[in-house]
């Protein structure tokens, strides 16, 4: 059974590209337009990996991570940040919030697949 990735990004094009890239590698992808939508979508399906942007309307990526980590079923789910933010301070915040890794945009489709495979197989 294919593993499911929750892709959270307010940019439709990024969601489209992430979705296409991961689907072509055999993953199921659930898309969410921001952190709040991500929280809702996370309830609908078993999520094996969360891939989230940082700067989004309504709820940003770090808040989403904190909210997810507060739920027992997401305590150990890998969460990767995929964002244009690349400062060490932001990365430290992400790490503190419970992020598993940090990917800086723009992403290389092949590299993204490699990282996702490494994290969830």
């Amino acid at each position, binding site marked *: 059974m294919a593993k499911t990735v929750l892709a959270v*990004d307010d*940019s*439709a*094009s*990024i969601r*489209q*590209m992430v979705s*296409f*890239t991961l689907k*072509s590698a055999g993953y199921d992808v659930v898309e969410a337009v921001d952190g709040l939508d991500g929280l809702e979508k996370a309830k609908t399906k078993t999520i094996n990996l969360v891939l989230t942007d*940082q*700067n989004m309307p309504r709820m940003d990526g770090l808040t989403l991570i904190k909210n997810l980590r507060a739920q027992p079923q997401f305590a150990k789910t890998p969460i990767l940040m995929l*964002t*244009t*933010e*690349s*400062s060490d301070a932001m*990365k430290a915040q992400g*790490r503190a919030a419970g*992020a*598993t*890794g*940090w*990917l*800086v*945009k*723009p*992403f*290389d*489709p*092949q*590299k993204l697949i490699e*990282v996702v495979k*490494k*994290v969830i197989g």
Partner: protein
Amino acid sequence: MSIRHVAILAVVVVSYIFLAYLNVTYYSALGASMYFFGVFGALYFWNCGLQSSSGNPGNYLLQCDVDVNGALKHCAEAINQVSVVLAAQLDSIEEENIRVRNIFSEAIEKLIGSFQYLAVLSSKQNEIGLRITARGANDSSVRQFEDFASKTSSTLRQFVDSVIENSRTAMSLVELTDKITTQMREVKGMLGEIEGISKQTNLLALNAAIEAARAGEAGRGFAVVADEVRDLSGRTAHFSLQIRNSLTKMQDSVDEAELAINRMAAQDMTFALTSKTDVEHAMAGIEAMNEITGNAVAELNVIAEDVSTAVGNAVLSLQFQDMVTQLLEHTGKRVELLRAVLKDEAEMAEVMGKTLSLGDTLNALDNIQRHIVLQAGRFELLHRSVAKNPVAQTGFASGEVELF
């Protein structure tokens, strides 16, 4: 601090604010006009004198060659005009910003769709190539045909070889029949000798019979012997004739056999050779076709890989839309802050425009001074609030990956 000092300070601060404005926005024409306005104000207040009318502190008379209230109103009007122009420009910036984002978004969405479709087509092309290759190697119908052609070729080769071998055998048989014919001729020759002996024996027997008859009673026994000899001679002639007849029949049979053998040996092998050549050509054609197909598939696979790489690069590059959108949103925040500043400027202008008495004028100038200081602080805040740009990237190399 004298009112002149306040005014000069105000001008300096206004100049500072608009210089900051120049840095914050990139609309240098607007910034320059605001700066010009500030300098103009400084020159205006510099030309005015300030005196105490009654010696009471705080009761000042502003002496100037123009009316102070009128000048303040002019300033207010000028500020209002600039504010209106700036607000309109900010509206345009915001509207254009939104349009750019929408155009980008729509165009990139379509581009991504196109590239993804390209990737799907490339993938299908690759699959077709692999299917063709697999079919060439594993497809049972193709393999069966190749087997059939191969066996046909082998059978035809055996057939031709067999015909050639038969031909050789026939030649040997013809030689043998020729030998048999020669030997039969020899036998016939020998039969002639036997017939001659038989005739002579018959003649001898006849002579013996005559002599026996002449001898009378004494020759009776001899006459019996002579008869027997004559009979033997007759039987010999008869057997000789039978043998000759048999030999003649044998000769006829041998002749017929030779004819048959010759016909067999002369049988036309062209059709077999032609068929064999055709089958070999067909086999060579199939092999050539397989090679061409294999090469074409290999090329298609290379193209598919290239397309896949190109699509990957396109996906990487198209993410500029997200970065540009975020940068534009950031610019939008700057515009929002500037709009708030302009709103305050308009309120200040309104206060300036309402000033009537000297006391009010002084209060207004004091307010203006405080307002300018406040605005300077706001610009500082603006600087700080938008200093953190969410997009640090300046190029399109793929971003770093870090797993915690």
